[in-house]
């Protein structure tokens, strides 16, 4: 296992400590339980936007704490959702009296832990709304399954809800905006390599040199199917058309496009993917109004990428363009 770490047992804490040293003007880090909050938390009268999930997806979520995005992030152990007491402690630190918005990726662990925390908050009289992100079109959706995973749309939802909350929108308004994002965004990913969970020390799966995993999530797990490695264009075609075939991308729509690296893929390759995605959108008369290209929601050092398209209107673009100042997203 080749990693720049000291001890697999404390990678999360040491990384958090690095963030605390690097961004004191933006955020504060608490240990035991671990959470990250805005430097100026709590903001009185503002809806507090809280997200969390396993670590290993950096910059998500901690890198999105700051003005116009998250009030708090709750990092669990690597690939393991945070616990309710962690979420509750973060919530207490950022509660500004206007309610809490939980942005939760649809994984059983995240859903259950945030649900327990939400129940506790409600019991204590603190209003909570939860926006569930479940955008991965690789996963079949049904009433009788765990449903689709939450992946790239999470980043967009955090930005957009964060902007609305910063502007003073009410909890119901921010939640409604978040649900709109969740409904209108779709993603799909591919892996060329697995990754190594530090405490495990071996790759989660092994891929021959001429194969790829299609329909992966963000936890170094195998995907929906294994296929022969193909060209960047062919891969983009697979991901993008699966996304297009799902609702709600129609001719004439505008989208925000995220070409996301999984942690071990160079930016150059993401540009090559974006090139093809732009062609495909043009063929379908879909306008890429905004884009984001880089490592935003990762799976440790996995090589691969994911595409996310979010259908937007003027309202969502307005919140997208609103100022943001966090370690990983700033304008």
């Amino acid at each position, binding site marked *: 296992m080749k990693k720049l770490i000291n001890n697999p047992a404390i990678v999360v804490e040491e990384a958090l400590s690095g963030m605390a040293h690097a961004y004191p003007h933006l955020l504060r880090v608490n240990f035991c339980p671990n959470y990250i909050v805005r430097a100026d938390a709590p903001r009185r009268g503002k809806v507090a936007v809280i997200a969390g999930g*396993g670590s290993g997806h950096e910059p998500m979520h901690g890198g999105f704490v700051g003005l116009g995005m998250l009030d708090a992030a709750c990092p669990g152990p690597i690939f393991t*959702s945070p616990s309710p*007491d962690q979420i509750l402690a973060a919530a207490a630190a950022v509660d500004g009296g206007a309610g809490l918005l939980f942005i939760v990726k649809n994984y*059983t662990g995240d859903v259950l832990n945030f649900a327990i925390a939400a129940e506790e908050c409600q019991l204590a009289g603190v209003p909570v709304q939860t926006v569930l992100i479940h955008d991965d079109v690789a996963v079949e959706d049904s009433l009788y399954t765990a449903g689709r995973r939450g992946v790239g749309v999470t980043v967009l939802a955090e930005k957009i809800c964060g902007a609305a909350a910063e502007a003073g929108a009410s909890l119901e308004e921010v939640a409604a905006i978040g649900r709109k994002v969740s409904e209108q965004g779709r993603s799909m990913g591919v892996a060329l390599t697995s990754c190594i969970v530090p405490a495990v020390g071996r790759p989660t799966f092994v891929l021959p040199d001429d194969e790829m995993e299609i329909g992966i999530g963000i936890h170094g797990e195998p995907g929906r199917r294994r296929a022969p490695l193909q060209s960047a264009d062919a891969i983009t075609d697979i991901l993008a058309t699966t996304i297009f075939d799902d609702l709600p991308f129609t001719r004439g729509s505008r989208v925000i496009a995220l070409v996301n690296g999984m942690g071990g893929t160079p930016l150059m390759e993401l540009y090559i993917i974006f090139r093809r995605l732009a062609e495909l959108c043009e063929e379908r008369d879909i306008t890429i109004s905004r884009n984001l290209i880089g490592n935003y929601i990762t799976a440790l050092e996995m090589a691969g990428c994911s595409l996310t398209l979010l259908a937007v209107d003027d309202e969502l673009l307005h919140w997208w363009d609103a100022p943001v100042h966090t370690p990983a997203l700033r304008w």
Partner: protein
Amino acid sequence: MTPTPMVEIASMIAWINRYADRISEHQAWLTALDAEIGDADHGINMQRGFEEVRMRLAHEHVDDLGVLFKGIGMTLLSKVGGASGPLYGTLFLRMGMVAAGKQTLTPVEFANAVAAGVEGIRQRGSARPGDKTMVDALMPAIIALHQALDDGATLCAALQAAAAAAEAGMKATIPMQAYKGRASYLGPRSIGHQDPGATSAFLLVQSAAESLCAAEHNSD
């Protein structure tokens, strides 16, 4: 006829400590199973949680089974994380509600407490039998436990039957396609792998049988 041996706090603590041992022994195995159809952390999660439970049990004196189980549940909830943390946490929290205020339980009361816990897991996770989760080991176990006690078996014998049922349930997850939890994302590719949560659940029942049979033997 000897009086029905009661389930004592000491034997519950013995059960949990034995389970913590089993989890440590099998951590790599549970994680490897999770690597196949999940995210390679189940053993790590469970070990983190049960080592914390073990440590707390060693330092706290408890004389109420409700308090004992609730404490275990809260520790699991805050230390395990992932899907298994809230689920195993709920199991013990519900057991704690049933056992609240008691220092001992009859075997049937114990079985009822466990059944309430398993019902809690089903409510939380809304997994149904056949979805390839821990429920597939726990449901048969609780049915076998009740059945054996109804048939007049000792708690030891009943738990042995429950462990056998849990083991069969665990193995039955191999050919299943997952519909809940992380393995469901794999769709048909989840077939052919044993569910890690069903495996840790079997170990839990097996540990109960081992430690309570030892307790029954000692009290003879």
